[in-house]
């Protein structure tokens, strides 16, 4: 592999710097101090392996002269230039926010970091830095070369076809082991299991101890059971004695009561014969005593009822007298229909009354009609017929009135014609007619004014009605104006024809006036007074005719009324007679007197009603009297029987007859005494029985009962009471102790049962075995992991041991050349450990010299040779990577510098060597040794 070119966008102090077509062999990168050689070394390393992860890493080298942080690098596979080696890998890396990594294979395909690493022979940055990219700082030590991962990559870089890291595998295995167990207290699995196991074992020990106590606890339990039994026995003894004492104390009273009752019973005497008999009659006696007051009330009631009966009897007799002989008691009793008769009678009374009233009214109306003044003198002697006299007038007033009216018109026309003729005559001379010019103008002026006002009013804002009136007035005004104009014209323009016509008409009017006056009996030329007289005569004739008409109308009406009144009277009479006949027929049917009026009938029926009721009341009173008499009689019989009984037993019976109430009270008093005595005896006997039963019940049977009975008979009540009081504390103690023991026994029993039934031992055992099993599994894994790691480690070591000699031989040869044969060989360290540091050199005299004893220059030459050897060894097993050496010849003397330069030139035959230097003499030296070396110059920044 060789770097063919690079371009720096920005990296530390370098910016926009690049080279193409770098030589595959030795390349001298020359430049003064501060030109950026070390930065270039870091740049090339960064391009191959990436930016440091931390920005504060000195190799991060943020750009200080601008440019994007990063750049590009191209390299070819193979260390030598070959045909077609323009096929290059291209790496582009940029850091910062716009981080970019682009790795492309020679065919342009994208590649991964892993692909790149394979292309680099599996080397990582550590290896590259340790062996291939060296500056003066690194050169003085082989520490970096001694790292496990570097050594592994150097000596055992390939297994199973691919390059994988045994060191990483070992590290991973160790990591897994540490998860399983830690040396000291930790949270690794085995540590936790051990802790848990310890806990379980401790618990198991406790549980085992507890289980081992089982027999002892069982024995304790049995002991407790015995104690409980004893305590219970003692407690029961106390309880029993206490109960006995309480029984004795209680029963002593019972016994005393029994004894007293027995004494009373023993002193009992039976009652005498009378009291004994009274006891048998106790019910009857009490009943009579209770009924005695009622008996007296019954007697009093009998008297009252007799008086009442007499009153009723008298009423009945009076009613029968009133009703008549046809009514006896039986008929009255069976006359239950009197209620309906009374209704009929009342109906007849009403109907007859109404008809009589109607008849009387009709009669009065007929009399009034007969006596009407209109009919005076018109009625016949019998008043049956009447005629109306005629009074027609001599002249017809209406015709007369028409004649007068016509006469008035003709007279008026006649006078008008005469006036016109006179006016004509005046016009032929100065004359003043009725229609003067000034009058006509005045009228015309008035008419014009009316029209004008009406128009103004109509145009004004006024009500519609007002407007209509105004329009009417205007029209009238216009008419008046037209008439006035005509009159004026006539006034102003009379013609001769007109004058002839007027004369003709005047003659005819005069003739007519005369005709009419004659017809009226007036002069031919009647005056106005004549006319008035004729008119008044006509009015008088009209009044007279109207008076006659009124008289005829009144007479006719009076006659009509009279006729109607008489017809009504006839009908009322007929109706009244019919009802009277009906009433008479009803009375006949009901057996009532024919002469009885409706009121009389009603009165008789009322009497009958009273009698009927009294008969009912009489029957009831009789029944009550009979009942009372029976009760009184019964009481008397019972009293008589008691009296007889008393007499038979020598008792006093007279008072029962004389004063039964008092006697009965006395007898009852005597009876009560007897009953009380007997109840007392019964009670005593019952008390004795109860006391005996309680004693039997309390004592029970058996010897204990006999003993108690005997003890009770002693009657030591005070001693018993005292003993009971003294026993109470012992009783409480015994009870308390028993409770304690029972509780203790229960607890012990529960504990024992818990222990017996507990699965805790089993649980713990199972847990212990489970943990032990898990621990064993962990230990198996631990052992397998450890063994795997051991295998890897030993293999790695063996591998290293096998390959290291070749490296040392190669490095030793080169070191011998460099030192001019002063040191002939390199030797590995004597021990396993420290070999990486403790390389020894063998001098020509055979002395083994520790590397640390050499001079600085020699040490640097030694480690440079060692790195060259390692690089070649790595190349043999993997890939020939380029060497980047930063001023590594600085500390060498000129002779050895030439030798080292020759070694570099030799190495450059198989590796690309980028020799960075700021020393012109070293550049020259190398160019002298390797004239074909490519020189690349860096300028001072």
């Amino acid at each position, binding site marked *: 592999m060789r770097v063919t070119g690079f371009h720096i966008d920005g990296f530390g102090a370098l910016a926009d710097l690049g080279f193409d077509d770098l030589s595959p062999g030795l390349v001298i990168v020359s430049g003064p101090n501060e030109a950026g050689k070390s930065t270039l070394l870091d740049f090339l390393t960064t391009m191959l392996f990436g930016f440091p992860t931390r920005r504060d890493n000195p190799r991060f080298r943020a750009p200080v002269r601008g440019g994007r942080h990063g750049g590009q690098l191209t390299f070819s596979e193979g260390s030598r230039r070959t045909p077609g080696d323009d096929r290059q890998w291209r790496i582009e890396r940029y850091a910062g926010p716009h981080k970019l990594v682009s790795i492309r294979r020679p065919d342009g395909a994208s590649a991964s970091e892993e692909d790149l690493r394979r292309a680099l022979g599996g080397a990582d940055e550590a290896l590259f830095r340790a062996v291939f990219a060296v500056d003066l700082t690194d050169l003085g030590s082989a520490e970096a070369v001694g790292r496990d991962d570097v050594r592994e990559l150097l000596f055992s870089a390939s*297994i199973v076809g691919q390059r994988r890291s045994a060191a990483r595998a070992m590290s991973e295995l160790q990591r897994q082991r540490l998860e399983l167990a830690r040396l000291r207290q930790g949270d690794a699995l085995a540590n936790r299991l051990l802790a848990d196991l310890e806990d379980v074992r401790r618990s198991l020990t406790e549980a085992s101890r507890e289980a081992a106590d089982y027999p002892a606890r069982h024995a304790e339990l049995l002991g407790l059971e015995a104690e409980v039994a004893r305590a219970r026995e003692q407690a029961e003894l106390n309880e029993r004695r206490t109960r006995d004492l309480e029984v004795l104390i209680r029963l002593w009273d019972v016994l005393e009561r029994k004894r007293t009752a027995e004494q009373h019973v023993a002193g009992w005497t039976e009652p005498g014969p009378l009291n004994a008999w009274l006891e048998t009659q106790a019910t009857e006696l009490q009943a009579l005593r209770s009924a005695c007051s009622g008996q007296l009330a019954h007697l009093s009631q009998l008297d009252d009822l007799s008086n009442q009966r007499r009153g009723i009897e008298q009423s009945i007799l009076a009613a029968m007298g009133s009703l008549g002989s046809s009514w006896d008691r039986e008929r009255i009793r069976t006359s239950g229909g009197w209620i309906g008769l009374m209704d009929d009678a009342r109906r007849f009374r009403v109907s007859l009354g109404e008809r009589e009233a109607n008849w009387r009214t009709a009669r009065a109306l007929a009399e009034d009609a007969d006596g009407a003044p209109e009919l005076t003198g018109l009625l016949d002697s019998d008043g049956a017929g009447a005629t109306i006299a005629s009074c027609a007038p001599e002249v017809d007033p209406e015709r007369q009135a028409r004649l007068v009216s016509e006469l008035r018109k003709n007279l008026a026309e006649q006078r008008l014609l005469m006036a016109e003729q006179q006016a004509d005559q005046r016009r032929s001379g100065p004359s003043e007619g009725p229609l003067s010019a000034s009058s006509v103008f005045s009228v015309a002026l008035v008419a014009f004014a009316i029209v004008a006002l009406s128009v103004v009013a109509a145009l004004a804002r006024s009500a519609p009605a007002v407007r209509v009136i105004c329009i009417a007035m205007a029209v009238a005004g216009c008419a008046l104006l037209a008439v006035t104009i005509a009159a004026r014209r006539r006034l102003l323009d009379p013609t001769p024809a007109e004058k002839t016509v007027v004369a003709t008409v005047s003659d005819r009017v005069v003739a007519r006036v005369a005709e009419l006056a004659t017809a009226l009996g007036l002069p031919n030329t009647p005056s106005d007074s004549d006319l008035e007289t004729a008119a008044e005569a006509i009015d008088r004739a009209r009044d007279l005719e109207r008076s006659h008409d009124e008289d005829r109308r009144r007479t006719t009406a009076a006659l009509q009324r009279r006729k109607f009144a008489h017809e009504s009277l006839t009908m009322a009479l007929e109706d009244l007679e019919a009802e009277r006949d009906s009433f008479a027929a009803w009375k006949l049917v009901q057996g009532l007197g024919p002469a009885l009026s409706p009121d009389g009938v009603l009165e008789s029926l009322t009497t009958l009603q009273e009698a009927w009721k009294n008969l009912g009341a009489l029957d009831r009173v009789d029944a009550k009297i009979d009942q009372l008499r029976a009760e009184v009689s019964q009481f008397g019989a019972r009293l008589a029987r008691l009296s007889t009984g008393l007499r038979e037993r020598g008792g006093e019976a007279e008072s029962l007859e004389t004063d039964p109430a008092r006697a009965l009270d006395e007898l009852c008093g005597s009876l009560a005494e007897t009953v009380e005595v007997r109840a007392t005896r019964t009670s005593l006997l019952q008390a004795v029985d109860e006391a005996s039963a309680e004693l039997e019940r309390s004592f029970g049977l058996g010897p204990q009962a006999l003993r108690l009975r005997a003890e009770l008979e002693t009657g030591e009540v005070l001693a018993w009471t005292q003993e009971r009081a003294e026993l109470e504390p012992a009783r409480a103690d015994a009870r308390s102790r028993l409770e304690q023991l029972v509780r203790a026994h229960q607890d012990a029993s529960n504990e024992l049962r818990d222990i017996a039934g507990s699965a805790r031992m089993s649980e713990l055992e*199972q847990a212990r075995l489970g943990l032990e099993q898990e621990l064993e599994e962990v230990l198996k894994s631990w052992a397998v992991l450890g063994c795997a790691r051991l295998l890897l480690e030993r293999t790695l070591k*063996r591998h290293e041991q096998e390959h290291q000699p070749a490296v040392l031989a190669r490095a030793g040869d080169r070191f011998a050349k460099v030192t001019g044969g002063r040191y002939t060989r390199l030797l590995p360290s004597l021990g396993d450990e420290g070999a990486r540091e403790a390389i020894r050199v063998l001098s020509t005299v055979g002395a083994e010299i520790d590397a640390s004893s050499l001079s600085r220059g020699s040490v640097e030459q030694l480690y440079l040779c060692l790195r060259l050897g390692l690089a070649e060894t790595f190349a043999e097993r993997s890939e020939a990577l380029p060497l980047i050496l930063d001023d590594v010849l600085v500390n060498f003397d000129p002779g050895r510098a030439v030798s080292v330069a020759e070694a570099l030139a030799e190495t450059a035959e198989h590796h690309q060597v980028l020799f960075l230097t700021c020393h012109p003499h070293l550049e020259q030296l190398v160019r002298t040794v390797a004239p074909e070396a490519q020189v690349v110059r860096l300028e001072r920044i």
Partner: protein
Amino acid sequence: MDDPSRAPDFSFVHAADLHLDTPFKGIGSTAPHVARQLREASLAAFDSLVELCLERRVAFLVVAGDVYDGPERGLRAQLRFRDGLARLSDAGISSFVVHGNHDPVETGWSALSGPWPELVTIFGTGTVKAVPVEVGGIPAATVQGVSFAQRGERQNLALRFAHRAGPGIQVGVLHCNVQGAASGYDDYSPCSLDDLRGIGLDYWALGHVHARMVLSGRSGSDEPWVVYPGNLQARSPKPSERGMKGAVVAHVHAGRVADLEPVGCDVVRFGLVEVDIGNIADLAELRARLVAASRDGLASSDGRSLVLRAQLVGQSELHLDLRRPGTLEDLLVALRGDFAEYQPFCWWDSIDDRSRPTVDIDAARAGSDFAADLIRLADQLGPILESDESAVEYLAAELSEGLPGTLRTRRVLEQLLKSPNLSPAELVDRALVLALGALEGDGH
């Protein structure tokens, strides 16, 4: 029996190695509901044994040792055992019990102070005791037995037995190790099969070996029966503990043991599911295969719960997934979750990954690179460890570096490497696979 035709027909039950109320070995922590049932399993199995005797109306029960798991004898176990035998006694069934190496008489602890039920015979130590048994009032058998006095009983107790004159079959009850019968068992009360056959008993009711074995006897022959019934309830995932566990019902006909009938009394069974990952593409498929195996196991377990262990073998790229830290644990959790609600339960105890990477080790061994060196080193180490105990001790000491002090001082790893649980050869083999896998995986 002078006249076999007069001998009554009957059955008796032979059980051994009850290990009552003892924990299961070889399984890690379990879910609470599983732990509870595991805890009760041995006691429940004993209850089943008692029920079996009652249901079959057998003449007697023999228990051939190791009733309890240790001299401390769980209290619960003792009470349960006594109560069970009391039930049998109440039902007229005799019980004959000997003690074995796990519950020797003299070192045992007894919580039972009272006498045993009437029909219970606990054979003592030293001399063999014989007890006649009647069936329906007719002598039917003579049962002899002797218990271990101490755990490490090394005497051949079988030789103390003898044929007893009397009617009925002769039954010997003994806890012993018949040499050559089974490996992996301590050689307590060692005897040979010939020893047993030569004594003249009809039936040897043995205990100690947890696998059911009929060492001698078959139906219709006159040779004596020598029988290990196996333990009543499996206790660990070991091969001998897998499959059905229980007792043997011996049917006696015409004065001889006619045949045997194994009857399962266990409530939890152990199983191993071996899966070759060679044809398995990914973890999901592996999980599906294991789930299917679980279902098959449950279906064939006759209603018993299962404790399963997966063993992964074969080569596949899947090996790298399995090797990734946490993968096996996650798979185990998932499998347990798949059956969390099952009853009877199915508990996946562990996954033993013995799969290998796809590296062709033989081909790699022939190479000259690091891997070849690694394989060759392992090839050399294995035989050394197998043959040199000091090398094992040296390796154990080296591997113990970094362990907590308790484990180092107890030399736990050395004990582990000397135990069958992790042989040196297995250790090296697994370590080589792991190392190669680690190298291979580094590239990913």
